[in-house]
């Protein structure tokens, strides 16, 4: 089997798993998860093989001649619309992180959905499991976690989700990329609302779907504009055609003084704003926590939001078309501004969240802002680097938080306490109870805060800062540096509250380490969260630079038609990132190190009003409710329903119905009755019941059919003859 065939096959196993589970095995839990995880394994294996071959081929070879294969799909005028797959260096590293994180999340899901546990006492479909009562040998009653009632359905959906992401990553054109993009949109809707009997989950699924839809509409416009201008949607045909890019960058589009490239770039970027939850379309991502935790990891790390960033990275040659030295194009400006702003804005909200998953949600938004901002200032490699490291450590953190919640739930069942298992102020001291979760979570947390040298997050974040600094983007540099400080602070706050100190509740004191299916993925991802940074150490870094070649830079840079150089080393950004990371971590530990049980957040009093604003996420949900949702509901209820539907459309329909009825009556009285009667009496019987006996057939309707056909034919012929023989 050739490597190209293998690339085509990569997305298929999860898709097949989806269909097999939905159609056949949905009642067998073990079989379903075996199929699903097996499919994820096959795709993982295939991805690793492809990755290996890609690396072996060498960066420059692969950059110029990627593994590509395409087929004709639809004939359009004089050529074909092609769809196909391609693995260039960017796709190769994309496949790498997607394959690993997806596979780990699949394994983790087995444990998370309580495989092997008994059925719940009162569990029902559409609600999270509520635990089951078991009686042990001594006759004691215990409450233990119960298995998810819709276990198979979950594995089917995440299979489809993975299919969407693989499709998107290996696409060589905008069309199939968009198909994968939309499949993920659907899956996020299905999975965020997985527990559909919860009103909050229902609201979240609709919110996620509609918010991302706003971005998708613009993106579709961008794709349409791209096709209209270039007559192709193939990436390489556009990016490696310098003349075309130049033409796009210099032709004015007629909108807001943008060039064609600028307009398309901005439209596509709005798609990313929706998908990757950038301001102002960020509101859906925190609510996406309503889904089961593996889904959060899927959405926040492995697939959905990464897809948004991946798309703009993919389109970078177009977005930067026309950029002169140091000067940014309009889409890049927009990205730099929105990305940096989002990074800071979301980090500040994360300071005041108490839900362990919600903190992570806002940190995702913030980190995505880093990537977007990095791309906006032209730091192409840094953006890719951060995308990769973030995927690993954020998947790790989400899975870790799921493990924490599970451990807490175990404690809650044990002591029968009624508390929120996700509130960090109910935790504390889990370090000893859940050691594996603690150490891996710590690795992820340090990576997120950019703990120097040993974590992957440090290298990627430092590279963004260094890029911003050396290219003189002071605003971006300052904003991101400050956001990094906040990041380190809230991360340490989270770790301190959750794992350090003493248990704040009895449940926390009885928490228990989770099943190996959950901890194994944590360990694997923790290795990446620490070690993955080593592939991208800048050559000129003091002491250790150059020991390991900066493989990532050399590899992915060949994706671009024009290779960018590495930025020179400078002490200032390095010192800044050291100070903000260590300072933030220290402050976070110091402030929260001994919060007693039942106490409020120590920052709540001193920060006062500001804390409240942060806690309520700057009231964006409320704002959108007033300016979008309420008017939309009013409009649909009053204008659309009452006016359009009831009055105008129904009115017209009733009018037509009345006329039709009257026409029918006239036909019956003046045509049907006399004409049909002209045939004889048989018709009356035949209309009552269609063809009950041969008598009716022979003498009835068939003649009618024939007569109609004959009349029409003869009439047409007469008309024709008439027109021929009359001059």
């Amino acid at each position: 089997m050739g490597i190209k065939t293998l690339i085509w096959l990569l997305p298929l196993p999860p898709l097949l798993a989806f269909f097999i589970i939905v159609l056949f095995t949905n009642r067998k839990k073990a079989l379903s998860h075996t199929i699903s995880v097996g499919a994820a394994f096959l795709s993982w294996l295939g991805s690793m093989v492809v990755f290996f071959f890609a690396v072996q081929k060498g960066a420059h070879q692969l950059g110029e001649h990627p593994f590509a294969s395409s087929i004709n799909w639809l004939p359009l005028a004089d050529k074909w619309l092609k769809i196909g797959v391609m693995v260039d260096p960017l796709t190769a590293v994309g496949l790498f992180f997607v394959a690993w994180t997806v596979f780990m999340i699949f394994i983790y899901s087995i444990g998370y959905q309580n495989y092997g546990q008994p059925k719940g006492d009162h569990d029902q479909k559409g609600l999270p499991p509520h635990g089951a009562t078991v009686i042990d040998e001594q006759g004691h009653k215990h409450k233990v976690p119960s298995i998810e009632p819709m276990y198979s359905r979950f594995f089917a959906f995440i299979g489809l989700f993975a299919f969407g992401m693989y499709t998107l990553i290996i696409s060589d054109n905008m069309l199939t990329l968009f198909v994968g993009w939309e499949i993920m949109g659907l899956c996020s809707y299905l999975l965020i609302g997985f527990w559909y009997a919860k009103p909050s989950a229902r609201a979240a699924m609709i919110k996620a779907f509609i918010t991302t839809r706003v971005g998708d509409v613009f993106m579709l416009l961008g794709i349409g504009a791209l096709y209209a201008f270039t007559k192709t949607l193939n990436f390489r045909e556009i990016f490696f055609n310098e003349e075309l890019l130049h033409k796009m960058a210099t032709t004015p589009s007629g909108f807001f003084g943008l060039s064609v490239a600028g307009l398309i770039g901005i439209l596509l970027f709005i798609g990313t704003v929706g998908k990757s939850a950038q301001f102002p379309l960020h509101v859906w991502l925190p609510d996406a926590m309503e889904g089961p935790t593996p889904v959060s990891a899927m959405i926040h790390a492995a697939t959905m939001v990464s897809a948004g960033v991946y798309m703009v990275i993919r389109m970078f040659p177009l977005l930067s078309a026309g950029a002169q030295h140091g000067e940014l194009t309009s889409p890049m400006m927009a990205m730099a501004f929105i990305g940096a702003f989002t990074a800071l804005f979301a980090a500040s909200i994360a300071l005041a969240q108490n839900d362990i998953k919600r903190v992570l949600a806002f940190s995702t938004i913030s980190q995505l802002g880093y990537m977007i901002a990095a791309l906006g200032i032209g730091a192409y490699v840094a953006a890719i680097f951060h995308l990769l490291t973030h995927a690993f450590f954020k998947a790790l953190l989400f899975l870790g938080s799921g493990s924490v919640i599970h451990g807490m739930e175990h404690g809650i069942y044990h002591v029968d306490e009624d508390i929120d298992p996700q509130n960090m102020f109910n935790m504390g001291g889990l370090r000893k109870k859940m050691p594996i979760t603690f150490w891996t979570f710590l690795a992820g947390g340090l990576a997120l805060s950019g703990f120097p040298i040993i974590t992957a997050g440090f290298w990627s974040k430092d590279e963004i800062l260094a890029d911003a600094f050396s290219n003189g983007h002071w605003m971006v540099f300052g904003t991101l540096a400050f956001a990094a400080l906040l990041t380190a602070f809230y991360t340490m706050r989270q770790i301190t509250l959750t794992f350090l100190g003493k248990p704040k509740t009895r449940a926390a004191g009885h928490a228990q380490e989770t099943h190996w299916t959950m901890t194994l993925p944590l360990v694997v991802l923790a290795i990446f969260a620490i070690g993955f940074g080593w592939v991208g150490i800048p050559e000129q870094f003091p002491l250790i630079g150059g020991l390991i070649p900066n493989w990532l830079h050399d590899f992915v840079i060949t994706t671009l038609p024009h290779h960018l150089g590495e930025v020179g080393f400078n002490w200032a950004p390095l010192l800044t990132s050291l100070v903000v990371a260590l300072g933030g971590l220290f402050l976070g530990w110091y402030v929260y190190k001994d919060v007693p049980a039942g106490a409020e957040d120590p920052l709540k009093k001193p920060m006062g009003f500001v804390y409240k604003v942060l806690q309520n996420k700057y009231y964006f949900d409320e704002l959108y409710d007033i300016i979008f949702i309420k008017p939309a509901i009013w409009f649909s209820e009053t204008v659309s329903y009452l006016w359009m539907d009831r009055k105008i459309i129904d009115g017209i329909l009733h009018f037509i119905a009345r006329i039709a009825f009257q026409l029918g009556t006239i036909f019956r009285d003046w045509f049907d009755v006399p004409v049909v009667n002209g045939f004889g009496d048989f018709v009356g019987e035949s209309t009552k019941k269609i063809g009950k006996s041969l008598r009716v057939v022979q003498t009835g309707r068939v003649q009618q059919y024939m007569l109609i056909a004959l009349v029409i034919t003869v009439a047409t012929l007469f008309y024709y003859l008439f027109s021929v023989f009359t001059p």
Partner: protein
Amino acid sequence: MTTTDLLSVFPLLILILWACLVLLLDVFLKRERLTTILTAIGLVVTLGFSISQNNLNLTGFNNMVVVDNFAVYLNIIFLGSGLLAISLAHDYLKRMGINRGEFYVLLMFSISGMMLMAIAADLIVFFLALELLSIPLYVLAAFARPRVESEEAGMKYFLLGAFSGGFVVYGIALVFGATATTNLSGIAARIAEHQADIPLLTIGAALILVGFSFKVAVVPFQMWTPDVYHGAPSAVTAFMAIGAKAAGFAALMRIFVAALPTLSEQITPIIWVLAALTMIVGNIVAVAQSNIKRMLAYSSIAHAGYILMALVSYGQSSVASVSVSAALFYLLSYAVTNFGAWAVVIAVEKAEGKGLALDDYAGIGRKYPALAAAMAIFMLSFTGVPPTLGFVGKFYLFRAVIDGGYIGLAVIGVLTSLISAFYYLRVVVIMYMRDGEPEVRSEPWLNLTTAFTAIATIVLSIFSAPILQWASQAILSTF
């Protein structure tokens, strides 16, 4: 008779001889299963010979038959349909208590008529083929005797068929009168030499058009369709809806594109009106149906209208070949989807005409997810939603119509497709969103057919390029 003559009709001969043989053997065979297997073998062998005729471009019997890629393409559709029909019928006949060996023999005779239609190049041969394909179908429609509906269907089909045959013969006579020949190449030559009586020829051509319009169920000659499709055994209907329609269109395309392009000034407006009427009436009336067989009958009328669109631009030589290949591709996509849909109908159908109401599909989505998913795929394909064959077929067809400059007709086509979404998706809605206690047959060959067609509907739409290319090489030989 030369070797070329023999070669050109060789697959046809094989099939007819085989059918006669099976007819004789059937008397001695104790088990019906053997008849089924023998028939399948016959069809597969014929299929092999038909495929081997690709790119041969033979003419035989003094230009009375012509074997070009167009004919090969259609023959493959006919034989493939025959095979699918067998797999549908195998268990169905048993279940309905009408398991008689003649079914298979009649099927083979009917297919041989269709194949003769595809290679015919003389009006007399067309008529011969028409009768050869139709008479077995009349019997097959009435095959479920003594069920009254089935007998009625057979009778009606026969009467209307005889009636439409009259039109064809009268048309042939007039064309002969106008050109003194019945051979297509001869007719084309006469017209080119200005020796034809054009008004007479036009009337003859119009009558031939009317005659075949009955066969392919074009409005206003469609009235028999719902009654016959409803009354005939479902397996027969599935075959009839493809075979007879494809054969009718084969004749229309061959006669009009190859021999009468010069008449397009007079004929095109008629076809335009017929196509528009067929799409409108077929789709609108289908909305009102509550019986799945009748709904599919009207849907087949509507699809005849879509295919007929391809003929509108038959006079423009630059567009004609694109249109013909669009129609051929559409026939294939319709065939695959249609057999799938009928397979589901057969799975749900019970004896005595029960289980045919749309309401009987309630709850299938929950109880039989695989079957419901397949049916949903077929319905989406009928509507023309990507990624299904129906979408690619419609896309290609509309493109050909627009290339021919008939934008108005394309707009009607798109709008009526929109209407069709209503009744196709209603099936999906009923399956998934209504509760019910459906009982569904699970028979191996039936399931296989459903799965095969469902997967083909999706996969062939994604990798449609080879088929499109194959269809676009299936160009009619012109004279």
